[in-house]
C-alpha cells in the first residue's frame, strides 16, 4: 500500500479539487483553532498532493491509523475535551485531512467534500459576521463545483469504456453557480417561513473562548499594552435622544474582590432588592449585543430591571444571563444615569466592598488614611483623592510600563502612567483603604451616533473601567478617575491629542474622513445584518406572519406559507430549466412554414419527417390535385427562400410576402370521395 498507484491524468483533476476545497475549509477556521491544527491539516493535504504528483509516497494503513490516534490525543491535550464547537471543529479539520490521505475512490472524494461542507456549517456556528459571508458563499460554490468534478471522475473501475471529456472546469463552476443562484429564491422564503423553534433541543455548550474586550478580571499591572480592537461591541437605538457623550457609561462586569494585584468579580450575584429613585429622566433603548461568549448583558449605567427571563438583575446592577451570549441578541432596557438609593447598604455588602488584602500596597494605604483624616466627610475624601490624581503628574497611556508586586503603590508613586484600569483600580484601593465602600465597574464608555441608521455604535476600543463609591446620602455614585487625568477620554474625537493614547487605526480614521464614513456605512449594514438576518428568530417569524395578515399566528401558519413558497419555487425552477431544455425557436420563415404545414395537415395529408418542401408538394399534388395551384407555388417559394440563392429584393420583404401568402391560403375540406386510406 505504501507505493502510490500510478494515477491516470484524468483522475487527478477531481483529487485536486477535493484537496483545494478541504484546504479552504481549513483556512476558514484558521482564526478559531490553534495554529498548529491548521498547519498540520494543510501539511497533510500537501502530502496528499505530493503523493498525487508522485513526489512522495502516501502513508500505509498503519501509519494513517497511528497518525489519526496521535492527532486525536493532541487535540485532547490542547482542549482537555473533544466536546464543544472549537474542539469538535479541530477534530473534524484533522480527520478530513487524514481522510484525504487515503482518498482514491469516488466515494472517498464525496466523503471529503461532505466534511468540507460540515466545516462550513461549523464556521457558520462559530461566527455569523457579515464580513465572512462572501467567503462562506465562495466555499459553498467550490464544494458544489467539486461535487460535479468528482461526479465526472472515471471512478475506481479501470475497465470502463473511455469517457467523453465531460464539461470543462469553467462549465462546472458555471453549473454549480447557476444551481446555487436558483436555490437562493428558495432559501430566502424558507429562511423566513420554515417553522422555527422557540427553544433548543439540547443545551448549548459554551465551547468558544471570550472574544470581548471585557473580562471577569482586571490586572492593571500585567497589561502593558491594551489591544484596541475596532470591532463593534454593541449598538443601541434610543427611544428619544441618546444621553450626552459624558454620560455614556455602559455597565459590564462589576469587580469586588481584590488580592493586591487582580480584581475579580466574586461570587456576588445577589438579586437586586434596592429601591432606586431616578434623579434624571430615564432612557429607554433597544440594545443589539454582539456575541461575547460571556454571561453579561450590557446596559447603560444603572439599568432599572431585568430585560427578560433567564437574565438576573443583581444588587450591583449587573445583568447576568444563564446562558453565555453565543449569538448576537437584542433586548429592551430602561436606564438612569443618576440614581438615589432609598435603602441603606447592607452590612455584608459594606464588608465586601471595603475588603483589602493585608500588607499589600502599604504606601497607598498610608496616603489614603492621611487623606481621609484630613477630609471631613466621605465626599471630601473622594474629592481629595481625585485632587491627588489630578495634581500628581499622571499621564494617560495605552502602553504603560509594567508594575511590580505592589502594583498600586508602583503606579501611584513611581510610574504614574496608565489607562483606565490603572486609575480605577488605584482609586478604589484608596477608597477602601479610607473605609469608603467602593467597587470597580468595567464596561464601555462612549458610543458614536451612526448617521445612516441613527444607532449608537459602541466598539471594543471603547472598553473602560471606572469606580463606584457608596456615599451615605446618595447611595452608589459613579466616579471616573480617568476623566480627571484625561478629560479627553470622555470625547473620543480628541483622543489624538494624546501621543501615547491612541492606536494606529484610530489615528488613521481621524485623518481620513471618507474612511470614517465608509466605516459608519459598514456598521449600519452590519447592524441591519445582525438584526434582520442573524437576529431573525421565532418571535420575528410570528411578527412577520402577523404583518402578512395572519391573526394570532402560530407554527402551523408558517408551515402553510412555507409549503406554498416551496411549490411556487419548484414550478419556477422547473419552468426555468425546461426553458433551456427546449429546442431554439425557429426563425420567422420557419414559423411561417410550420404554420403552412399545420394548415395542410388538416387536409389529412401531414408532412412526413422525410419530406422536404418540394417532395411534400409532390405528395400533396398527387392526392389533392385540386390544391395544386395554391399549395405547390407556396412550397416552392419556401424552398427557394430557404435554400435558393439570394434574390434582388431584401430577404425580409420576401419572408413577409411568404407569411402573407400563408395567411391568405384557405383550404377546403377534402372531397368525400377521395379520402385517403
Amino acid at each position: 500500500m505504501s507505493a502510490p498507484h500510478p494515477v491516470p491524468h484524468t483522475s487527478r483533476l477531481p483529487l485536486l479539487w477535493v484537496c483545494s476545497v478541504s484546504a479552504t475549509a481549513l483556512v476558514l477556521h484558521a482564526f478559531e483553532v490553534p495554529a498548529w491544527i491548521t498547519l498540520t491539516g494543510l501539511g497533510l493535504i500537501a502530502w496528499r498532493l505530493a503523493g498525487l504528483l508522485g513526489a512522495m509516497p502516501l502513508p500505509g494503513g498503519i501509519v494513517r491509523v497511528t497518525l489519526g490516534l496521535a492527532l486525536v490525543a493532541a487535540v485532547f491535550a490542547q482542549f482537555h475535551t473533544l466536546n464543544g464547537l472549537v474542539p469538535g471543529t479541530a477534530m473534524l479539520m484533522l480527520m478530513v485531512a487524514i481522510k484525504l490521505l487515503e482518498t482514491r475512490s469516488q466515494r472517498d472524494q464525496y466523503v471529503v467534500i461532505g466534511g468540507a461542507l460540515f466545516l462550513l456549517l461549523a464556521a457558520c456556528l462559530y461566527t455569523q459576521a457579515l464580513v465572512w459571508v462572501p467567503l462562506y458563499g465562495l466555499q459553498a460554490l467550490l464544494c458544489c463545483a467539486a461535487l460535479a468534478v468528482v461526479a465526472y471522475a472515471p471512478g475506481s473501475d479501470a475497465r470502463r469504456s473511455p469517457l467523453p471529456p465531460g464539461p470543462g472546469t469553467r462549465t462546472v463552476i458555471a453549473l454549480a453557480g447557476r444551481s446555487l443562484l436558483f436555490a437562493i429564491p428558495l432559501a430566502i422564503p424558507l429562511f423566513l417561513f420554515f417553522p422555527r423553534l422557540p427553544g433548543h433541543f439540547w443545551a448549548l455548550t459554551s465551547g468558544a473562548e471570550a472574544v470581548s474586550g471585557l473580562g471577569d478580571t482586571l490586572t492593571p499591572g500585567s497589561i502593558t499594552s491594551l489591544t484596541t480592537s475596532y470591532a463593534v461591541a454593541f449598538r443601541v437605538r434610543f427611544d428619544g435622544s441618546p444621553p450626552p457623550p459624558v454620560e455614556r457609561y455602559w455597565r459590564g462586569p462589576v469587580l469586588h474582590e481584590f488580592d493586591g494585584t487582580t480584581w475579580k468579580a466574586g461570587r456576588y450575584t445577589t438579586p437586586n432588592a434596592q429601591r432606586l429613585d431616578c434623579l434624571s429622566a430615564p432612557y429607554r433603548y433597544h440594545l443589539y449585543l454582539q456575541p461575547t461568549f460571556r454571561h453579561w448583558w450590557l446596559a447603560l449605567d444603572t439599568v432599572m430591571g431585568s430585560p427578560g427571563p433567564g437574565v438576573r438583575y443583581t444588587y450591583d446592577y449587573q445583568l447576568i444571563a444563564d446562558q453565555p451570549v453565543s449569538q448576537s441578541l437584542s433586548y429592551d432596557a430602561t436606564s438612569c444615569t443618576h440614581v438615589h438609593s432609598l435603602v441603606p447598604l447592607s452590612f455584608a455588602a459594606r464588608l465586601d466592598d471595603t475588603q483589602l488584602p493585608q500588607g499589600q500596597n502599604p504606601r497607598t494605604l498610608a496616603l489614603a488614611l492621611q487623606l481621609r483624616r484630613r477630609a471631613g466627610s466621605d465626599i471630601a475624601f473622594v474629592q481629595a483623592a481625585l485632587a491627588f490624581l489630578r495634581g500628581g503628574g499622571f499621564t494617560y497611556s495605552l502602553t504603560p510600563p509594567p508594575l511590580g508586586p505592589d502594583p498600586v503603590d508602583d503606579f501611584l508613586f513611581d510610574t504614574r502612567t496608565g489607562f483606565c484600569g490603572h486609575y480605577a483600580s488605584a482609586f478604589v484601593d484608596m477608597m477602601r483603604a479610607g473605609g469608603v465602600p467602593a467597587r470597580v465597574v468595567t464596561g464601555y464608555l462612549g458610543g458614536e451616533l451612526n448617521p445612516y441608521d441613527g444607532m449608537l455604535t459602541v466598539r471594543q476600543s471603547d472598553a473602560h473601567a471606572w469606580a463606584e463609591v457608596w456615599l451615605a446620602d446618595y447611595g452608589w455614585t459613579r466616579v471616573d478617575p480617568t476623566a480627571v487625568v484625561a478629560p479627553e477620554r470622555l470625547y473620543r474625537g480628541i483622543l489624538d491629542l494624546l501621543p501615547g493614547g491612541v492606536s494606529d487605526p484610530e489615528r488613521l480614521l481621524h485623518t481620513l474622513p471618507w474612511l470614517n464614513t465608509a466605516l459608519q456605512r459598514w456598521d449600519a449594514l452590519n447592524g441591519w445584518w445582525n438584526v434582520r438576518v442573524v437576529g431573525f428568530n421565532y418571535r420575528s417569524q410570528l411578527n412577520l406572519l402577523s404583518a402578512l395578515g395572519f391573526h394570532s399566528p402560530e407554527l402551523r401558519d408558517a408551515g402553510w406559507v412555507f409549503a406554498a413558497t416551496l411549490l411556487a419555487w419548484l414550478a419556477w425552477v422547473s419552468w426555468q430549466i425546461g426553458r433551456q431544455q427546449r429546442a431554439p425557436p425557429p426563425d420567422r420563415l420557419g414559423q411561417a412554414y410550420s404554420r403552412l404545414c399545420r394548415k395542410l395537415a388538416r387536409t389529412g395529408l401531414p408532412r412526413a419527417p422525410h419530406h422536404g418542401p418540394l417532395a411534400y408538394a409532390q405528395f400533396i399534388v398527387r392526392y389533392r390535385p385540386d390544391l395544386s395551384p395554391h399549395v405547390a407555388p407556396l412550397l416552392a417559394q419556401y424552398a427557394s427562400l430557404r435554400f435558393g440563392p439570394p434574390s434582388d429584393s431584401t430577404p425580409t420583404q420576401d419572408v413577409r410576402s411568404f407569411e402573407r401568402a400563408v395567411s391568405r391560403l384557405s383550404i377546403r375540406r377534402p372531397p368525400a370521395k377521395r379520402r385517403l386510406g
Partner: protein
Amino acid sequence: MAVVAKLRERLRNSAAEWARRRQGADILPLTLARRRLYILPTRAGMAFGALVLTMLIAALNYANSLALLLAFLLAGFALVAMHECHRNLLGLSLLEAAAPPLFAGSTGTLRLTLRNASRLARYRVEIALPDEREAPLDLTSGGRGEVELSLRAHKRGLQRIDRLRISSSHPFGLFRVWTWVHASIVVIVYPRPAGSLPLPSDSGISAGSRPRGAGGADEWFGLRPFRDGDSPRQVAWKAYAREAPLLVKEYSTAGSPLRLLSLEAARQPDIESRLAQLARWIVDAEAGGDLYGLELPGALIPAHRGPDHRHRCLMALALYGSADSAVSAAGTP
C-alpha cells in the same frame, strides 16, 4: 450480501417489467418524454440529504440564522440538481439502433445514434444493455452522437434486444435519471462456424446449377436483377434497350469451384453441429472466392457468391428450424 444482491436484482427486474407494461412498445426514432423518465437519488445524493438534514437540525437547535440559510441553500441546490439531472435526458432523441449480424459466441457492436435538439449541451448520457456496463457520451447543443455497445451473441437465431437503459447522473451525481427503451431491435446471429470437414468438392453438385464449359476465360453465368453497387459495365444494356428491367450479366471465374452445401453433406452427429459445419464452409467458400449454394429442407439458395449471398446463406442457417424463418427472406445486414 448475496441475498441482498438477489433481492435488488429482482426488484430491478420487476420495476423494469412494470415500466414496460406502463410505457408500451417503443418505435425508433424516439424522443424521451417526461412520463417515461424516472429519477431517484443516488447513494451520494442520499448522503447529501442526510448531511443537509443534520445541518438543519444543528442550525435550528443553535438558532443560528446563517447555518439555517446554508442548510436551505444546499437543500435548494439539491432540488435544482434534481431538475438539472432530469433535464439532461428530457427531450433527448434516440434516432436509430443498428447492429451488424454476428456469429454466435462472438462479440459484436450495437451502434446507437442520439440527437440533442436542445439549446444546452448534455453530458455523460449513459446507455447500457441489461446487466452490461454503461457506455457514456456527451452531446453538444443541437448535436448528434453515436455510441457503441458491445453485444455478446450466445446462440444462433434472432437475438432481440428488448431493453435498453439510458441514464445519467449529471451534473452533481446526486440524482440518477433513467428510462428504459423497449424498441424492437433485432440482431441476426449466425451459427458459430465450427467443424473441420473439408469443403464438399464439385462432385456433389447437381448438374442443373453447374455452369457449362468450365475452363477458359470468364464464362457467361447468367443474368440477375440490378442491385445498388453493381458496376455499370456489367449491366446488360442490350436487354435494357429492349425495355427489359435493368439486368446484370454474371460471369463465373474460370476454374473457380462450385459447391452445393447441404445438411446431408455436413456429416456431424447433431443438427447444431451440422449447421456450424455449414457456416464454416460458407465462410471458407466466400473467402476462397468459390461459388456456393445452400440446400436446406424447404429452402434452396442457388449457387452464387458475394457478401449478400453469404448473408442470405448464413441467415438461412441462423433461422433454420425456428419460427422466425418466415422473415428470413427480408433480412439484410
